[in-house]
């Protein structure tokens, strides 16, 4: 097969995956996922457990070590059919506390400790690097198989170059679809679906090759069985310890591998999917391994001595002249490698950005939580991390020279991530597990693993000098990497597994037994271990003296403006308040923290809120209070709780209504005296100057000047009366609306020109996005324009920036259009924000422009009549008003 055709099909296949991911992302954005959220897709996405190691390496493994390759599947099978024990709890915790990664789960469980997050991240990255190198290597090998099968035998590309191109391509794809958004839950529908497609491709490819081998080359099942009995494989023998150890290791890995945690817990849409996957995923694994032994046996039989058994899946069909089948097998291997690398890179990038980059950023820039646009920091950190992870994988491949057998590297990586298992299991099943214990266990496990397994994997003399292998560290015989404490009976991997796990668990347990956890840690522990009881909430915030507007500003920088505003608005509504700013109650702070932790991880979210609220002041006494409180709550029925919440809400609404009523009667008096004042003021000038004029004998220029004053004041009087009449008509709802289709852009144009009359001396920079304004509204154009004029004039009057600027932002959402007018002045203080829409509510204005303070009140009435609203938009740096108007206003019956 021509090499170029091979490259072309890879590119086409990758383009196809792009298209799948792209289409799904589009559908997800519109909220129409439908069958894409099915348990089938979930199960298929779990198949990233089967990497190129499985696809190519399993055959090689079987050829070298007989049935031992099955242990790699038995572990996950046991974990999945036993999902009621562990996976169910893991998924529940992940969904309930918006866990973004394995590191996040561990750090969150042990009191939101970022140190633990960093340790787990380091373990994950170190263990994943050889694993990613393994994928690159398998792709290079498979390219090589095709290249050497070419007639002239020339190699168009050297292996290193292939590895570079593959790594770059994967980084590109991953960055494109893995860091598009910063969601409340860290989910990537596009990628998950693309991976499900790849899962089908690799399964079909392996089954096709297997069927061809069994029924095409060998003479059916009976013949294969005969060949197995005759083959060299039967001479292979296994130690029980290694067999058991490897099953345990693969069981641990399926939980602790970053990519498995990502698809299993983070991308989970529905706990019900797990029930289906509990048997469907083992079935997939079984199907994947069904033909491994036949392919290995037949391959050993048919192919020349010394062929690499890792490539039998490709070389067997090629040797039999089945180029098409080989192509399919090649795409299967390509799928296995790419899907693993993509998800692994995303999972690692999430950990690196949330536990290393952002905490560093926040530490280096103490005010950052309130100022910087953290969204872009997070996303850029992830993009860089993805590139870095792939670069490290490539570097490992380059340095190690891609020589080691695939299976060995895979097992070393498994063992690395398995070091997280004690802290993980202890964390969700044992309330006594403490942060110190977890740190000690992880560090011990990491050290032992590195010393006995990881560093020796580079080969004697590469990292560890030869002498250490024969004589032990510091010449101490009992510290030999492959025979700690003189245990020589085990093979290296079992030896490393045994000692790393034993010492890890020991350190973890002793550390937990002898330390006392902090309050936050105890709360988190109870919340995680008792996640199904749901009685103990996670750690709580004390009611802080925090400005909700500052919280809103921070939330906007992480969640994005729209979702932050809607979160705050719904929280405010739940408290029975209008507007965008809820009270910073402990409940609300918890809710906010959970949402933020879905984007940046629990430890970071906690730290950011702490920056604004101050430390969460939870003491042991509070804990006792929480405990007795929750014991009491258990006795109440859920209904009672719901009613209590309802009552609180009603009470809040009633209190607000009562305040409104008392204010209203005060307002009525105030309104009358205000009118009287506003009428008397121009009349005073008119009377005084007209008397002066009647006396005669004045200089002509004074006559002109005083005449003009009288004229102006008379106009002012007229305008005031007009406004009052306008307002009373609008308030009675007896206004005649003149509905018609009108261009939004046209209305804004008109308003901008008209508003230029207020303070014509000021040069204003107006920032607009014309395409977004290109829409037609069915509304009363004159009235809406009047509102726009008013808002723009206000900005011209009151914006105090030296280079005044007005941004007009138009958005359309489900039949409603919002138009935001945002200036860059110093804004309106929070206590005045609700006041400004009241009649005659004029803020202290040094530069009063002759208005009577009725403008915004009129705007509000107009918008009510137009079926929309106008509100002050907090947290925008300058003064900002949001006009919301329906796209199509239907004439109301009244």
């Amino acid at each position, binding site marked *: 097969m021509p090499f170029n055709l091979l490259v072309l099909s890879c590119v086409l296949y990758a383009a196809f995956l792009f298209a799948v991911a792209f289409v799904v992302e589009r559908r997800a954005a519109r909220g129409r996922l439908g069958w894409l959220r099915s348990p089938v897709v979930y199960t298929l996405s779990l198949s990233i457990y089967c990497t190129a190691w499985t696809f190519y390496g399993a055959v090689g493994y079987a050829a070298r070590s007989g049935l031992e390759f099955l242990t790699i599947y038995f572990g996950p099978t*046991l974990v999945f059919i036993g999902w*009621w024990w562990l996976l169910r709890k893991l998924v529940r915790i992940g969904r309930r506390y918006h866990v973004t990664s394995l590191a996040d789960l561990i750090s969150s469980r042990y009191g939101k400790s970022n140190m633990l997050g960093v340790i787990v991240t380091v373990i994950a990255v170190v263990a994943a690097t050889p694993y990613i190198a393994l994928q690159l290597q398998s792709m290079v090998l498979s390219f090589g198989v095709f290249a050497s099968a070419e007639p002239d035998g020339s190699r168009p590309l050297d292996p290193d170059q292939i590895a570079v191109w593959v790594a770059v391509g994967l980084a590109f794809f991953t960055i494109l679809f893995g860091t598009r958004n910063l969601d409340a839950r860290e989910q990537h529908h596009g990628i998950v679906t693309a991976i499900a497609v790849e899962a089908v491709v690799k399964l079909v490819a392996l089954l096709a090759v297997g069927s061809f081998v069994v029924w095409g080359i060998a003479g059916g099942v009976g013949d294969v069985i005969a060949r*197995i009995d005759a083959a060299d494989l*039967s001479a292979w023998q*296994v130690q029980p310890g290694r067999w058991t150890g490897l099953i345990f290791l693969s069981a641990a890995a399926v939980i602790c591998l970053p990519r498995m945690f990502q698809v299993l817990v983070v991308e989970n849409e529905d706990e019900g999917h797990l029930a289906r996957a509990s048997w469907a995923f083992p079935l997939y694994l079984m199907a994947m391994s069904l033909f491994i032994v036949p392919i290995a046996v037949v391959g050993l039989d048919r192919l020349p001595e010394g062929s690499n058994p890792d490539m039998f899946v490709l070389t067997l069909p090629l040797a039999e002249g089945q180029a098409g089948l080989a192509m399919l097998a090649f795409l299967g291997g390509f799928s296995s490698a790419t899907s693993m690398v993509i998800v692994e890179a995303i999972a690692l990038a999430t950990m690196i950005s949330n536990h290393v980059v952002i905490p560093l950023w926040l530490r280096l820039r103490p005010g950052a939580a309130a100022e910087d646009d953290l969204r872009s920091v997070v996303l850029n950190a992830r993009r860089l991390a993805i590139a870095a992870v792939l670069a490290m994988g490539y570097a490992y491949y380059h340095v190690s020279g891609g020589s080691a057998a695939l299976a060995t590297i895979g097992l070393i990586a498994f063992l690395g991530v398995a070091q997280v298992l004690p802290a993980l299991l202890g964390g969700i099943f044992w309330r006594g597990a403490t942060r110190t214990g977890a740190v000690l266990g992880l560090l011990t496990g990491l050290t032992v693993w590195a010393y006995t397994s990881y560093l020796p994997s580079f080969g004697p003399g590469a990292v560890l000098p030869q002498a250490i292998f024969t004589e032990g560290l510091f010449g101490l015989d009992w510290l030999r990497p492959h025979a700690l404490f003189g245990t020589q009976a085990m093979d290296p991997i079992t030896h490393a597994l045994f000692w790393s796990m034993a010492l890890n668990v020991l350190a973890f347990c002793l550390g937990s037994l002898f330390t006392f956890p902090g309050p936050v840690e105890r709360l988190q522990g109870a919340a995680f271990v008792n996640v199904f009881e749901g009685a103990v909430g996670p750690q709580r915030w004390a009611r802080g003296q925090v400005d909700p507007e500052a919280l809103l500003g921070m939330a906007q920088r992480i969640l994005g403006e729209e979702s932050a505003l809607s979160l705050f608005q719904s929280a405010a509504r739940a408290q029975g308040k209008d507007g965008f700013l809820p009270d910073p109650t402990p409940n609300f702070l918890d809710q906010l923290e959970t949402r933020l932790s879905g984007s940046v991880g629990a430890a970071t979210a906690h730290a950011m809120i702490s920056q604004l609220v101050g430390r969460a002041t939870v003491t042991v006494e509070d804990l006792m209070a929480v405990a007795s409180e929750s014991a009491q709550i258990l006795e109440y029925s859920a209904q009672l709780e719901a009613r209590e919440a309802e009552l609180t809400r009603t009470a809040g609404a009633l209190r607000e209504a009562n305040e409104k009523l008392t204010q209203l009667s005060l307002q009525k008096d105030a309104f009358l005296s205000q009118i009287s004042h506003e009428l008397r003021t121009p009349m005073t000038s008119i009377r005084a100057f007209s008397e002066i004029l009647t006396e005669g004998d004045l200089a002509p220029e004074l006559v002109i000047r005083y005449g003009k004053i009288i004229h102006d004041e008379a106009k002012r009087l007229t305008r005031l009366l007009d406004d009052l009449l306008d307002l009373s008509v609008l308030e009675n709802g007896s206004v005649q609306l003149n509905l018609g289709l009108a261009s939004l852009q046209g209305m804004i144009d008109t308003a901008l020109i008209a508003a230029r009359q207020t303070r014509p001396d000021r040069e204003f920079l107006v920032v607009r996005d014309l395409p977004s304004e290109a829409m037609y509204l069915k509304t009363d154009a004159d009235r809406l324009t009047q509102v726009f004029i008013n808002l723009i004039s206000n900005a011209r009057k009151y914006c105090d920036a030296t280079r005044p600027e007005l941004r007009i932002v138009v958005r359309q959402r489900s039949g409603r259009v919002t138009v935001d007018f945002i200036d860059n002045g110093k804004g309106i203080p929070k206590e005045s924000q609700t006041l400004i829409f009241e009649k005659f509510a004029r803020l202290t204005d040094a530069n009063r422009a002759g208005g009577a303070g009725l403008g915004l009140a009129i705007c509000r009435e107009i918008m009510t009549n137009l079926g929309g609203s106008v509100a002050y938009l907090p947290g925008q740096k300058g003064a900002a008003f949001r006009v919301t108007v329906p796209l199509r206003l239907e004439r109301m019956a009244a």
Partner: protein
Amino acid sequence: MKQPRRPLFLARAPYRRRRLRDAARLLPIVGAFLLLLPLLWAREARLSLTSADVIYFFLVWLGLIGLAAALAPGLRGGDGGDGADDEED
């Protein structure tokens, strides 16, 4: 923390549901036992590969998957009390 009072005896349906959960918890243990069993067959505690071993492992595997598939639908709605303290009846 003490759980609020639970009924000592259960009606038929919840009783079945609990036993189903027990079965689900038991399944991986049975699986582990069956997958480790061949280690004891071979002489000198060493396992060598014959076609019979291959067939045995795949049959056990299929059987476990089948049992898990049979249990899963009944468990899907299962929620709430996870503790081992609801075992006695």
